[in-house]
């Protein structure tokens, strides 16, 4: 019978490693959330399936001493060696974003800055919970509300919680319609939520649209050099979109390129979801801290708008909810704000203001990621 033992070796392996069964369950939950609840299905489904895939008996997709499995190879080449996957995805995201609402109303940029507060607060909270600073900084970037940035920063800082950070980042992005209204209502009155903001967009020239991505890259690259790749690839995608000569490339970046990377990014990140690395108290805390980051990002943006209102004339007051759209979860956050505004007053249309703040948040989040990395270098965490 011994010659047939290979048929039961796998079962024996799982019995000896019961943690893998827990990871199958977690993978199943992620797949369920993706399909049944429509929570970021493009990422959570590949991650869920990947979580099952990487928790099969070795060598499987991981490999062993003699072989390199496909998922390990994808991780080494696509993320570990160059952070290529998240950066290439940024080209696609840049090509998808229309910065027009921001360019016609640039004061919204301030909210893209203020709504990154949750990132930095979460770093401190994580440190107080006992995480080493390098992991705390990676965890804080969940508040960038931007999956590729979270993955990029946690990889560069070599955090051991990269898998949990990616799961948290994408899960909470899907939960923005639940998290943001709760956070906003916590710090605003009904009267404030009913403030109307007329929308009179200034015309934006084509020259401005073309020069904008180039100049933003220069500014970010000079002030926070670590953000050059994040900002640069985002703005490169945007330049392809706005130049008016590369429509086919723009469509390719927005569609096939972004889709291809997305398919493999989730499975590749799952490399970090091997049971022995993933199942610990730290992972649970990371999930909790992700919620803190999202909540305080929103609160930071809203409170900053309220602060500005102190100095603004009565007819130019800002609806503080718009500040909450300064997080990067684009375009979901803008839609949430619009929905909340209409709920309070069915004639109050804030969508375009919120979109302006929301795309500013996209810039703010990558700059915040770059600043975190710059400090990582100052603190001697990056070689």
């Amino acid at each position: 019978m011994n010659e047939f033992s290979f048929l039961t070796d796998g079962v024996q392996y799982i019995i000896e490693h019961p943690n893998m069964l827990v990871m199958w369950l977690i993978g199943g939950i992620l797949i369920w959330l993706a399909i049944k609840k429509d929570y970021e299905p493009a990422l959570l489904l590949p991650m869920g399936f990947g979580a099952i895939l990487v928790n099969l008996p070795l060598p499987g997709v991981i490999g062993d001493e003699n072989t390199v499995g496909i998922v390990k190879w994808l991780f080494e080449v696509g993320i570990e060696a160059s952070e290529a996957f998240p950066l290439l995805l940024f080209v696609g995201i840049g090509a998808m974003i229309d910065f027009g609402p921001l360019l016609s109303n640039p004061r919204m940029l301030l909210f893209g800055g203020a709504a990154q507060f949750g990132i930095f607060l979460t770093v401190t909270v994580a440190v107080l919970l006992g995480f080493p600073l390098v992991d705390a900084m990676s965890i804080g970037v969940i508040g960038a509300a931007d999956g590729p940035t979270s993955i990029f920063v946690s990889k560069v800082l070599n955090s051991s919680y990269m898998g949990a950070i990616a799961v948290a980042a994408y899960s909470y992005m899907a939960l923005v319609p639940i998290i943001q209204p709760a956070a906003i209502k916590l710090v605003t009155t009904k009267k404030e939520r009913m403030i109307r903001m007329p929308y009179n967009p200034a015309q934006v020239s084509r020259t401005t649209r073309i020069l904008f991505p180039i100049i933003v890259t220069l500014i970010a690259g000079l002030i926070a050099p670590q953000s050059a790749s994040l900002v640069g690839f985002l703005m490169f995608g945007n330049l392809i979109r706005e130049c008016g000569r590369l429509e086919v490339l723009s469509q390719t970046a927005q569609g096939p390129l972004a889709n291809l990377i997305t398919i493999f990014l989730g499975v590749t990140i799952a490399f970090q979801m091997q049971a022995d690395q993933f199942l610990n108290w730290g992972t649970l805390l990371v999930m909790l801290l992700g919620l803190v980051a999202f909540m305080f990002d929103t609160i930071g943006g809203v409170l900053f708008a309220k602060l500005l209102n102190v100095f603004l004339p009565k007819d130019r007051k800002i609806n503080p909810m718009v500040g909450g759209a300064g997080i990067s979860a684009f375009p979901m956050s803008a839609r949430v704000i619009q929905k909340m505004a209409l709920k309070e007053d069915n004639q109050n249309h804030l969508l375009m203001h919120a979109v302006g703040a929301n795309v500013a948040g996209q810039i703010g989040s990558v700059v915040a990621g770059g600043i975190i990395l710059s400090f990582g270098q100052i603190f001697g965490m990056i070689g």
Partner: protein
Amino acid sequence: MDLMTLSVMFTSLLGEVQNEDVMRSLELMGKGMLGIFIVMVLIFLVIVILNKATKKKD
């Protein structure tokens, strides 16, 4: 009771809190937010200048 004393007294689920890390995280919070606002204000000024400079030409 100062922050350092509080953090020393605090022992977390994951282990002892490092005072140096707490101070660095606060430094990161202050300088990080300042850095973001500086970048955002610069970009704001650039947009205003670009909008003004290209208004008539286009």
